[in-house]
């Protein structure tokens, strides 16, 4: 079965510092990958999704970017963090085997001070 690893689990960063969050998956090939942000323990905001290596679709214009250098690796980055970037970041995948539903990773809690 598929597994999603996200690290770090928690992160505290100062405003203006760079960010790199990594998501890696196991047990599946060629998944669709997604980055979501959840603020204040509520709704999910889709940030990016990728249907293949090097293919990134951005949903919300902001100071974040994403990359997919390998089939099972999805990276979320920022050059300069803002206070509003604080939140719970979730990586998710969808595969042909799962058909239509998504499978979520454990998340990274980011606090920007």
């Amino acid at each position: 079965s598929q597994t999603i690893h996200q690290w770090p689990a928690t992160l505290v960063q100062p405003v203006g510092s760079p960010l790199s969050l990594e998501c890696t998956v196991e047990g599946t090939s060629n998944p669709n990958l997604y980055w979501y942000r959840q603020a204040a323990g509520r709704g999910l905001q889709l940030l990016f999704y990728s249907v293949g290596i090097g293919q990134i679709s951005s949903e919300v214009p902001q100071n974040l970017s994403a990359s997919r250098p390998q089939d099972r690796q999805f990276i979320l980055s920022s050059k300069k963090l803002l206070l509003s970037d604080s939140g719970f970041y979730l990586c998710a995948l969808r595969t042909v085997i799962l058909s239509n539903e998504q499978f979520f990773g454990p998340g990274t809690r980011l606090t920007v001070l």
Partner: protein
Amino acid sequence: AQSVAQPEDQVNVAEGNPLTVKCTYSVSGNPYLFWYVQYPNRGLQFLLKYITGDNLVKGSYGFEAEFNKSQTSFHLKKPSALVSDSALYFCAVREPGTYKYIFGTGTRLKVLA
């Protein structure tokens, strides 16, 4: 624009009583509908989905949901609530013909002993 609405921020129910968590949607075409559950500081877990076929779908942990096309609703139900069902519940829809998922704002379910 595609959207999902969860009109209740919180639902309280006594243990052993039936529970309903409401969801309505707005999409063009035939919707793919999902329910997920989230426990504190964890990723989302898939509960059930409606793609096509029988309007009543059964999922994990005794949950079920009824698809109502005329009312554009997909309410989550359980005949007898457990204290352990207390969590944050999300309704989601996948845009037909895309890889994108739209999530509701979430409903916090509190089951009282």
